[in-house]
């Protein structure tokens, strides 16, 4: 499974978004569509850190890095190196 697919699975099973996950591709605007709830962000970061065994710097938790699944994947990949 690609990093993008893993992230999408992780989000689909942990976030309670009422939209259709079938529409969510790597470029789907997560923030404009309110896929992530404000109080779930801390949870999401922890899930990403556990799933990919990386540490995400608080300063990298910014809109540009969470705008889409593609952007989150890029952030995770950059932390893996």
């Amino acid at each position, binding site marked *: 499974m690609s990093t993008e697919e893993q992230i999408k699975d992780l989000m689909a099973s942990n976030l*309670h*978004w*009422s939209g259709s996950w079938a529409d969510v591709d790597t470029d789907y605007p997560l923030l404009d569509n309110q896929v992530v709830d404000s*109080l779930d*962000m*801390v949870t999401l*970061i922890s899930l990403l850190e556990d799933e990919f065994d990386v540490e995400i710097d*608080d300063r990298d938790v910014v809109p540009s890095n*969470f705008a889409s699944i593609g952007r989150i994947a890029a952030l995770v990949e950059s932390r893996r190196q």
Partner: protein
Amino acid sequence: MSTTLVHDLLHASAERFPSRTAVVDGERSVTYAELDATANRLAHLLAARRVRKGDRVGLYLDKSLESLIGIYGILKAGAAYVPLDPGAPPLRLGPIARDAGLSCLVTSKAKAGLWRSLIAEGAPVETLVVLDGDDREVTPPDRAEVVTASAIDEHPSDGPPDVPRANSDLAYILYTSGSTGVPKGVMLSHLNAMSFVDWATGEFGVTEDDRLSSHAPLHFDLSVFDLFAAAKAGAAVVLVPQQLALFPFELAKWIRDTGITVWYSVPSILTSLVLRGRLNETELPAVRTVLFAGEVFPTKYLYQVMQILTHARFANLFGPTETNVCTWYEVPRSAGEPADSIPIGRAINGVETFAVGEDGSVLAHGEVGELYVRGPTVMQGYWGDEERTKAALLRHWQGESGGFPVYRTGDLAYLDDNGDWIFLGRRDSQIKSRGYRIELGDIEAALSQHPSVLECAVVAVPDEAVTNRIKAFVVASESVEASELSRFCAGRLPRYMTPEFYEFLDELPRSSTGKIDRRTLAAGAQTTAAASDAGE
């Protein structure tokens, strides 16, 4: 006792501080004079669209400058505002709109795509007032009329419509989770709101120099402080951008850059600032008061925030929506190890609180009983629900002949040696998550509607970051994925009420009397959660 009406606060500040900033919404801001004038126009427009004294008008839009204009316009027209959770699905909101009789909605063009389904789900909408669009941008659904921003300018701005009003009139109805799956509409009068606002403005010394954050959504009663304490003092209310609340590090910088002086939110958001916001690296000299409410604040995070904001005053405000706020506790700056929990404190001015035993008698210091509240902040009842109102509001408690009714909170509490109330928990299955109060039965009612669900039980799993997470135990007639149930609930419930975990069982455990044994389920859920934490 205050005879002021909530919207009089706006007018008075517009007279005293016409050019001071009333609302900041991102790059936009309005002065008190501008806000008052626009709200007057909207009130006339609503009156011209048959909105009358005592009517309820819905607010169906994200929190914004427009939604605040909506609130004051609705109040000035003599009606009560009913904020609909802009993120909740139409299946949830339609019945609320029907219950409250919302024939008129103040809404936005971003919501236009959902009007039709809201009406299909029972909202009796005839008029949609769109404050941020023009005629070319929105198509009216069948049978409803759309009025756009340009129509507002035709109406006079120099005063509200002439409507006779009393402070016992309803100012707003806030819908909250109900145990049978039907939300309850908590009715608050102008006097109810003003009694709290007068106390809070005085106690926290809010002045025209303050900048108050507005983080809570409008359907959540924390917003009553942000909006109306600001209006009373002539202070600015600064709306926390919805997206920004996702990013703790950005939010900390935003608090600094906007010069917020009084912050009020649920503890979860403050916890996220400690955990992920690098609060210790962001200087926040302007923040002088931090208020929190809605759920228990884990003290280790509370004390971390206090150690960073050494100059600020911290207070815990407590009270179900039915009482606005009934007690409060100023967190002392003491040395040494923090206590495990903090009290909910003492009754606010003009409010009485009692612990009452099973037999209805008032208990002594130290004895645990149900918290009863009496005073001018206590609600008028549940909209259209005499039975629930009678059960919750006691009008002649202990032989009282008149005065304010007593509200039975359902909370268990006792008075400690210092005279502060200590909150212990609930008498029923109401829980808190992310500051929201949730009836577990409300979730079970929604989940039970799924064709594959034979039986279900929903329990709370305690969690430090958000107070509780929600877990559903399901007996299914055929194989069904958790993700399918998750989607199903998301279409029927507000987001904060949808279960985060599902477990499938062949049957639910029963007590000897045949009732679902929720205690066993809850204990099991806690152990599972602890085990998976340990495994990480």
